């Protein structure tokens, strides 16, 4: 299993992802500089968190034009797995690889805190090792994470089971008090229609060790690995 971690100039979760994937989980992981145009040998691409180009205009609005993004698109067309975390999710939306946009939080503040995610769809390559309805404790850290899409898109997302994670209470209730940023339908993470591209605001790479408070992030990484193992068998 080999992960490619895409690095834009202002990315900062690249090292955290590398640490989790390589040092904790023991898989191969390699950085990909945003000027790369050819990607080969990777089984899954990670677009990590950060402020790709400072995000002064709109998160991801400039990153989508980075040379690496056409290679990422190509990779997804071939069915390759891509996971966009936080800024990575924003970039995937800006690049049109996922529907919708991420607006500034409804309270207009940056938030770094633990949240509970309810797994809505455990049939995706990113959640196959979860139970449906399982609660994952994973932290968020963002200003623009307020998921928005028009009504038709939302209905499609729901009908196609593309909503993978929702913000929930510890007991799994989907209520506005559990929603840290005002996202519609408490959406925390979605997949594309084909199911090979996941975008989520929370940071699974920050929840991979009990010393740091949770290992629930590993369930997502291990699901990806399971899919890979199955595919390569």
């Amino acid at each position, binding site marked *: 299993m080999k992960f490619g971690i895409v690095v834009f100039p202002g990315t900062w979760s690249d090292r*955290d992802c590398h640490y989790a994937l390589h040092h904790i989980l023991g898989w191969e992981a390699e950085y990909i500089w945003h000027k790369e145009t050819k990607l080969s040998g990777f089984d899954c691409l990670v677009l990590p968190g950060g402020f790709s180009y400072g995000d002064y205009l709109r998160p991801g609005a400039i990153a989508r034009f980075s040379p690496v993004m056409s290679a990422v698109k190509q990779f997804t067309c071939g069915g390759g797995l891509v996971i966009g975390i936080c800024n990575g999710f924003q970039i995937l939306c800006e690049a049109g690889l996922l529907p919708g946009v991420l607006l500034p939080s409804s309270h207009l503040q940056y938030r770094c805190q633990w949240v509970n995610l309810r797994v809505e769809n455990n049939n995706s390559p990113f959640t196959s090792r979860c139970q449906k309805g399982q609660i994952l404790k994973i932290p968020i850290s963002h200003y623009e994470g307020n998921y928005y899409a028009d009504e038709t898109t939302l209905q499609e997302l729901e009908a196609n089971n593309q909503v993978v994670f929702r913000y929930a209470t510890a007991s799994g209730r989907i209520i506005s008090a559990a929603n840290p940023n005002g996202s519609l339908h408490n959406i925390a993470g979605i997949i594309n229609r084909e199911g090979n591209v996941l975008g989520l605001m929370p*940071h699974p790479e*920050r929840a991979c060790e009990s*010393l*740091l408070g949770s290992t629930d992030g590993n369930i997502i990484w291990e699901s990806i690995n399971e899919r890979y193992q199955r595919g390569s068998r």
Partner: protein
Amino acid sequence: MSVTKEALDKVALSKEEYNLIIQRLGRDPTEVELGVFGSLWSEHCGYKHSKPLLKLLPSKGKHVIVKPGEENAGVVDIGDGLLVVMKMESHNHPSAVEPHQGAATGIGGIVRDIFTMGARPIALLNSLRFGPLSEVHNRYLCNGVIAGIAAYGNCLGIPNIGGELFFSDCYSFNPLVNVLCLGIAEEGELVKAKAGGGDSLLMLVGADTGRDGIYGASGLASRAFGDEQELRPTVQVGNPFLEKLLIEACLELARTDWIVGMQDLGAAGLTSAVIESAAKGGCGVEIDVLRVARREESMTPYEVMLSESQERMLVIVKKGCEAKVKSLFDHWGISSGIIGRVSDDGLAVIKEGERTVAEVPVSLLISPPFYRPRAKKPSWLTELQSFDVSTVPDLKPRQCSSVLLRLLASPNIASKEVVYRQYDHQVMDNSVVLPGSDAAVLRIKGTRKGLSLTIDGNDRYCYLDPFLGGVIGVAEAARNLVCSGAEPLAITDCLNFGDPQKKDVYYQLKESIKGIARACQELQVPVISGNVSLYNETRGEAIYPSPIIGMVGLLDNVGTHCTMAFRDEGDFVFLLGGLLSPGDDKDGLGGSEYLELIHNLIKGEPSVDLSLERRVQRCCLEAIRVGIIKSAHDCSDGGLAVAIAESCITGNIGFRGEIPSHTVELGVDNQRVPSLGFRLDVVLFGEHQSRIVVSLNHGSAIKLSNIARKWQVPLTFLGEIGGRHLVIDNYINLPLAKIKKAWCKGFSHNLTDS
């Protein structure tokens, strides 16, 4: 004298200093030279009033690698081939003028100090002071500063893992914004901030130079000011994205052998970066301002030299390596250009093309006059200190619960979660104990070790007794680290005071420094770096003397860390250290939050017994290390009842206990409580120092008592963890939900405008 008083005021030089310059130079300085002298002789760069006093601070220690003043930040060795680089700095005046950018660029500056040395910044902390939030202007400043720190720090991907906030009238219009950055470097990778190497080249890297921030060091930071509106253009605007690129590029550069040194451009911009590196390298420099990339047209040499445009670095490049260095910066999309060279004549020569606009020996520029004004204890202080507690009526038993709720909701005590949740405190995947406990804990990847960090100051104590306030600041910071299970290693300090030319302010400065030095000696923690911010006053009124202590500690095994949260039903709770002050002659109410909040009195004196303090800390640390302590919480603002309540709230579990009215249950030093007469306010809310509330499995009590006996530390049984109420005798009986609400909402209510 050929210049006007206005011209001298602009560069913050006195007439006497101007005459000294003429005398040493043997001629009148040019306009550029005057500006350069003004900046480098400013309080901010030259430490004119504080340097003689700073020598009192102990800076030696077996782990200390770089001492104060030697480099941009202090360095300690933590073993495993790793070094910790640490520094704190103030951005008070810019934040008073423009809170968002003032605080943001404060983060930018302190972070540059760390990566300039080749260390990767891994933690930020801040200590903030504002006037009461009931005033709309203070809310504007407070919200602006917090947003500025969040905007800049979050973009850099450096966790902001701790801080403190305190409110008092004296900070209205003059907030304090002290920011601390800590970095980690591998042994042998430290970069010096010095020029040298014969024919090395000076390369300016990063942002283009504009007119922003001119007179920042001399004008803003080195004198008191009245009309902040007029000074707004002297505050710089930050670009954290560029800073993030600089971090990565400069750390990459630090691992090459292409450079002699690196220095960031902070206060006094190019002037201080170039001159200070030349001074450290014992050489001269020649620069051409026409080669400095600018963002504005027709800037004068004076403006180029004194601009404080942010996100710029000076790199001293070995001759022949300039192309390689440039291509490294190109990779990161950062502009760079050679602006001059190192010379061996000891002269600082500034040219505009062929024309020389300044030519001064470097040694003159870095030798400002030092001042040692007369320090005098003000008479008003003696009056404040002579406070008789018997003039304040004791609490009635039925009042205690509501007083506890009021204290928990006081902005000085209430949870600051609404603040720190705006800062990314988990990026880098090291944060083991998050903000909100006594000290934050980070693990160090690749080792079993951990670092514990805290930032502390008690300005009310310093106001009432600058010496003891200084002592207690250090003692409390060390106690915080010990509560997390760490051995205190080193201090960085930020000394915020008023106008040092006033006798009482100079007295406060001197006494506080002496107090810090005294505690450092007793607790064996050296000061490795620091910063002084003077002239913190508005309309003639000085702020409280506010020395802020940042401290780092080491955990050999990060797995043994401890927090303040109570854990399990049935655990025993003890107090380490005396229930009251040693000798019982102090009431613990002097300078307390209780006295100010409930009785509107800022009077009396704090007290501390440093020998007991040291023993309490040793005792606590040993007990944590042998693994019997399940929670430890420093007993500070608000006293014992508040400390117990905070452990309940963070642990989400209740407590039932009694006030021990006669003797200590276990341990030595049996002490009697009521020599003051039994006062409820003293016992519940008095702020006696050297006390830690710990909890443990009841089976471990004997072990704890043995350790306490070994260190001759009084040990008092307080009660048992459990239930959903906080109950202390017949005095306090409150549901957990209620104390939680007071503590969690007390501060956030004040922050919003509605």
